Structure formats: C-alpha cells, structure tokens
C-alpha cells in the first residue's frame, strides 16, 4: 500500500530569502503546514494577501490523527475551494450504536438537516485533508496567487516588534533571517512559537491514556460510530470503533492512568487487545498505533501584538466530540477576513482583538463540552460511576435517558452571543439566526445559500428592499436579494424569517450574522457595518 505520509509533499527548496543581504519582509508568515496553517494560508492567498508557510517537516502528518470533520468544516472547505475532494474521499455516516457491558443499549441516527449542502460529518484521515489542502495551494500557485510552502524550515527564534516580527529559520542549507508584518502560529499543541514567546498554556490534564490504532480490515462492520462503555474486552474502560476510507478502521481503547506506554504500544500487546474486541478470526493489519494523554487547556489570549495563534497551538481539547481540528478551522474562518481588512487599512487593528474574544468563547465552549464528555466516559468518583451506569441502564429501556449519555458531543460552530461586532437584534425572527450565529444553509434551486454568502460582506434581503450596494468607510457590502418563493422547501423562511414577512440581514465574510432587521434602514445598517468591522 502506498503510504502518502512517506513521500515529501513540499520538499526543501532553497529560497532566495536565504541569500538576501537584508531580511526579506513578507505580509504574513504562518508556522505549521497542518490543516489549520494550510487552510489559513489558502484563505489569505485567495484574498490576495501574500503568505509564506514554514514547516519543519516536508510531509503530511503521520497516522490518521484527526478523522472526523464537521459540516461547518466542509462549508469552510467549500469557501476555500476544496470541499468537493473531501466529500468524494470521506466516509459519510449518520448512525451509531452505544454498548454497555456486554450488550447494545441503543442506536441512533443523527437525522441530518434537510436542505443543506453538506453532511453532518465525514470521516477522513488527517493526511488526506492535508493532501487536499496542499493540492489547493498548488492550484492557487498555478493561478499566480502569492502563496508558498517552505518544507524543512524550522523557526528557531522569534523577535516581536511593534510593526513586524523577525524570525530566525533553520534549514538543511543553514539558517536565515526573515520578517513578516504578521505571524500566525499554527504549530500545534506543543507549539514552539508559544514557548519561544514564553506564553503559558494552562488547563486541566486528565489522568488517562488512550491507545489509538488504525487497522486495515475487510470487515462487515457498517459505517457507524460504535462506542462501548465498560465492555468485556476492555473492562472498566471505554472503546470506540469508527470507519475511515480505504478500509481503515479507527479503534480507540481507554487504558487508564497507571500503564507503561512503551510496552502497551508494542504490536504483541496491541494485537491481543484488538482480537478480543474484533473477534479471534477477523483478519486485520495494524497501520498505526499511538498512545495519548489528553488535556483541556487554552492560552489566555490568542493574540500577542503581531502574533496570532490558531488551532491546537492556542487551545487543546480531549478528542471526544471531534472538537480539535474542526475548531482550528473555525479559528481561521474567523481570522482570515479580519486580517485582510486590517492589512488593507479598511479596519482598525483592534478588529483582531475580536478574533481573540470570539475564538476564546469558542474554545471555552469546546473545553466545557469535551470536559463533560470525559467526566461521563471516565467517572472520577464512586458516585459519578453509579450515576453514569444508571444513565446507561435506563437508556436501554427508556428514550429519555439517551440525551444524558455522553460519549462525545460532536463539534458545532460557536454562536458569538455578546460579540462587539454584533448589532442588537431588530427582527422578531428565529433564534438560530440571531446576530452572532453562523448562517444555516438553505436550498436555492440546484444550488445552496452558503456559497452565495462567502468571503464578502453581504446584505441578504428576503422579500425586502435595499440598495444593491452599500459602501461605508471603505467596506463594500453587496446585496443578495432572495424571496421565500425561491425555496419551496420553506427552509429559507423557517431559518431566516420565522413569523416575519421579510428581513434584511448583514452577513460577515465568514457567513456569520452581524445584524438583522425587519426592513432596510440606512443609518442602522451603516452603523451595523461599522460595528461589524470593529469601528464602534
């Protein structure tokens, strides 16, 4: 089998910067060519911002790592011009089973929303996501976009200044110095950028270890998420089975705290555990094994002057709920357009502080959800185990107990209630589209609503009048005029109007609602645009 993680995707290539007499100054440098760094680079390059990505390696990540990608991530990927290959390769799933002890207690169907372009989730190995993103970078380069990835470029020191950042970079052909107006650190949970700047990363360490194994097998297990609490094959612990493309199955086995990690990782110890779970006669190959201890923590501020942190470098969560990579992509979704406006001088520098506020809110929500999942999966006291087991026992017999079962609350985009970019709600409309919410999708004939809202400020009018274009202090807002008649399924009406006859929405470039009213009122919307660009 061809292992894509063995082949360099962005091999070292000597940069002219290494021979420059005075350090070359770039607009934006990103550290880390993982999913978050690559997505951020694509987002900026698509907007014409010059970016350089530095990564100490030259390949996609080893092992499947993040495997579960949410609808919001797919919507973001569409905006970045690479949603389709992810859908084509990913495994779609919407069903799951929950087991307790030796029996199935219930099964579920996520019941995907009707009238949205993307499925609730797909499973895909992280290396495939990275490969798709690298291919998108290459396509942008072919179109002449100002984007570059430098493999085997390891940042050894960071100097911060009022109006730029200076980096010392180590390469196979020696060190060089380079500068950038802005630096985005997407270098993961063990972020060296964070350490070099001496910034704390505080939080809660969970005393537990998990064995993750990717196995290749021709098995009859369906494309479902199977989760076991206290199964006979892993007594007192939990287990998870989930399908990925290429007949690769992700298996997570909780091991407890007091173990010998090196010993547990050896195939002679892993294989008997897997056989106990899958059955003695199931044939499989072990592709990747890892043991991790997880933590829930974040930086206090995701911004330090000209340095911005995104993804795991800024916040870390337990894996239950797929809230790691998905939240990292929500970070860059929030950051890209703001940085572009600040670079172009169309918004004050303080707009970037709203990145910190909004994404800290997102991170806190994710940390709370994943901490609660962890407390359910790994009860910390006799009484919490008793209550947990009571929930599971009841869930087998009564539907009411099933929402209490917590094997991971799957990633959802954060609603930025209280953000300074929001204007007061002036529509008696559905709560799901109140200011601060991400726009829900809706069918528009053969197409969908979300792509029509991507990458620019939009004045969305639904059975309401407004000018086709509004310019407020350099910010251009274009109108998208729709009618409830455009969508016979009534999703547009139900999601955006509710009982109202018409509505005008101001939508941010990241497809979030900034303001809404029952009709167009020029002064109110001019003020809303100012607020949504950090000017009020």
């Amino acid at each position, binding site marked *: 089998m061809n292992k894509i993680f063995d082949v360099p995707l962005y091999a070292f290539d000597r940069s002219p910067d290494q021979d420059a007499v005075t350090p070359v100054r770039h607009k934006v440098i990103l550290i880390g060519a993982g999913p978050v760094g690559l997505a951020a680079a694509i987002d900026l390059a698509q907007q014409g911002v010059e970016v350089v990505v530095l990564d100490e390696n030259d390949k996609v990540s080893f092992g499947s790592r993040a495997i579960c990608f949410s609808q919001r991530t797919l919507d973001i990927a569409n905006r970045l011009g690479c949603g389709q290959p992810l859908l084509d390769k990913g495994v779609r799933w919407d069903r799951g089973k929950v087991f307790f002890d030796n029996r199935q207690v219930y099964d579920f169907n996520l019941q995907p929303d009707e009238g949205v372009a993307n499925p609730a989730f797909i499973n895909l190995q992280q290396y495939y996501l990275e490969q798709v993103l690298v291919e998108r970078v290459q396509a942008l380069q072919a179109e002449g976009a100002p984007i570059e990835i430098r493999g085997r470029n390891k940042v050894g020191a960071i100097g911060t200044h009022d109006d730029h950042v200076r980096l010392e970079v180590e390469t196979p052909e020696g060190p060089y110095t380079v500068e950038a107006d802005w630096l985005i650190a997407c270098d993961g949970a063990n972020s060296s950028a964070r350490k070099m700047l001496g910034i704390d990363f505080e939080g809660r360490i969970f005393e537990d270890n998990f064995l993750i194994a990717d196995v290749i097998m021709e098995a009859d297990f369906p494309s479902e998420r199977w989760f076991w609490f206290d199964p006979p094959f892993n007594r007192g612990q939990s287990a998870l089975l989930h399908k990925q493309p290429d007949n690769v199955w992700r298996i997570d086995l909780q091991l407890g705290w007091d173990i010998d990690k090196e010993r547990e990782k050896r195939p002679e110890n892993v294989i008997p555990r897997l056989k106990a779970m899958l059955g003695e006669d199931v044939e499989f190959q072990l592709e990747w094994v890892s043991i991790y201890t997880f933590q829930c923590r974040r930086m206090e501020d995701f911004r330090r002057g000209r340095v911005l942190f995104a993804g795991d470098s800024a916040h870390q969560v337990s894996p239950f709920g797929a809230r790691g990579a998905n939240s990292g992509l929500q970070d860059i979704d929030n950051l890209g357009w703001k940085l572009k406006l600040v670079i172009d001088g169309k918004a004050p520098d303080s707009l970037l502080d709203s990145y910190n506020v909004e994404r800290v809110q997102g991170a806190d929500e994710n940390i709370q959800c994943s901490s609660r999942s962890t407390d359910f999966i790994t009860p910390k006291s006799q009484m919490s185990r008793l*209550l947990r087991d*009571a*929930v599971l026992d*009841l869930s087998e017999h009564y539907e009411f*107990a099933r929402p*209490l079962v917590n094997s991971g609350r799957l990633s959802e985009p954060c609603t930025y209630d209280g953000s300074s970019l929001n204007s007061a709600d002036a529509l008696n409309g559905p709560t799901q589209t109140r200011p601060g919410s991400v726009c829900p999708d809706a069918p528009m004939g053969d197409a969908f609503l979300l792509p029509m809202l991507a990458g620019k400020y939009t004045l969305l009018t639904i059975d309401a009048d407004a000018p086709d274009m509004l310019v407020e202090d350099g910010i251009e807002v274009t109108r998208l005029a729709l009618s409830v008649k455009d969508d016979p399924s009534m999703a547009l009406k139900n999601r955006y109007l509710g009982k109202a006859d018409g509505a005008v929405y101001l939508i941010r470039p990241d497809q979030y609602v900034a303001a809404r009213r029952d009709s167009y009122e020029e002064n109110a919307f001019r003020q809303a645009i100012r607020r949504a660009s950090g000017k009020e």
Partner: protein
Amino acid sequence: MSDLILTPNINDADGFYAGLLAAHDGLDKAESDALNARLVLVLANHVGDNSILTQALQAAALTDR
C-alpha cells in the same frame, strides 16, 4: 420561573414511603444505590424544567438553612 414545591404535595405520603422502602427490599447496598440513582434520573426527567431541578439540587444539599 416557577418555584420548587417544598410544602406537602404527595397525596398518600405513607403509601409512597412504604413503596420506596419496598422497592429496596432484598437489594444489597450496590443494587440499592443503583436503584436510587435511576430513580433520581427518572424523576428529574419528569420534572424537566432546569430551574426547578437547580432549586431541587440546592434544597437537597441542605446548605442554605
């Protein structure tokens, strides 16, 4: 917001209490603990309203009296 009822509200108090004891008859400590835990969850679901449940948690803690 409605208030948690903390005045007598069970129409046959003695009958209910006898039933509660009877449900635990013949159970060992672990089984009884599990039954109580399930009972709390069943009753909480019936109540549903989180503000009442929060008041119930506070009332049961006996800390503010």
